[in-house]
């Protein structure tokens, strides 16, 4: 019952939303500690240079992109006339999310 592209699009949208809800507060908290210099700032920057952290941030960018494109897909379904372009839209959404995440990673390293 769930093996079709629209269901996958829904699942990715839901999972990325939930994960963003968990990771974004952590991400913002780290940023704020760096900016306000509440902790030893050089230590935090070291931490931020850790490749794993960069990968993690790339992941957050990926989640954001997936959630954004998933939301645009829903808006398109609901506000544009129904068409057979939807599968293409899902593929484009996946591609765009991946590109955004990769370009982010490329810049990070």
């Amino acid at each position, binding site marked *: 019952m769930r093996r079709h592209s629209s*269901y996958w699009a829904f699942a990715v949208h839901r999972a990325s939303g939930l994960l963003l809800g968990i990771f974004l507060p952590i991400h913002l908290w780290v940023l704020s500690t760096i900016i306000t210099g509440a902790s030893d700032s050089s230590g935090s920057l070291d931490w931020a240079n850790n490749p794993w952290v960069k990968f993690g941030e790339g992941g957050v960018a990926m989640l954001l992109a997936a959630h954004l494109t998933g939301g645009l897909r829903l808006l398109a379904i*609901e506000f544009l006339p*129904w068409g057979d372009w939807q599968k293409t839209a899902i593929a484009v959404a996946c591609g765009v999310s991946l590109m955004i995440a990769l370009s982010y990673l490329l810049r990070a390293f």
Partner: protein
Amino acid sequence: MTKAQVLDVSVWRGGVSGEFVAYRVPRHDNQTVLDVVTYIQRHLDPTLSYRFACRVGVCGSCAMTVNGSPKWTCRTHVERVANGHRLSLSPLRNLPVIKDLVVDMRTFFTKWRRARGYFISAGTREDAFARVRPDSAQRRQADKGIECINCAVCYAACDVVSWKPDYLGPAALNRVWTLINDARDEHRDLHLAAVASDDGCLGCHGQQACLQHCPMGLNPAAGIAGLKRTVALAALRGEL
């Protein structure tokens, strides 16, 4: 009889609690899943309960879960759904089981009422026929949804229905979409108000299982999207 000519069928027996019981049924060309169930009841166990009426895909009463997916059984060929020589048959999901393959359809139909999925007009038989142009945009929209046979396959396929028991479901919402596009219906506002909620069209997550499973090839997901659009516009205009 060689192995390949026999189907191993496991059928849900009992009510909410019950178990799958195995039957061996001779296999034929052009055999439908309903033929298999009928064979079991006529030749192996007359106490098996199931529903059917027309056997030609019109009445919508024969739906059940076949190898994990909801299907109308009178027009589903064994050839196309059997997993090798195995068939698993159970009652439709999302509706209470009465016995064996029979579910209680009451919630399904009361939700049609709750969605105001019925024609509302003050017209009488004395009035002249309404003239609806077959090529008008509204009529074309309604056309796409009116062949529903109330089989509840979409309702069983929908995850939102299983997560939110009060959700009206694709069939009822599809029906409302046809009424919103019916130029003769005099209470578009009442229909819209009945579906403009989280239990109505706004609860749909666009998973589109209804579209994937509708045996009539209808697209309730498109109807629900149309309802969301109409509700949004009505809300912007302050009509809701």
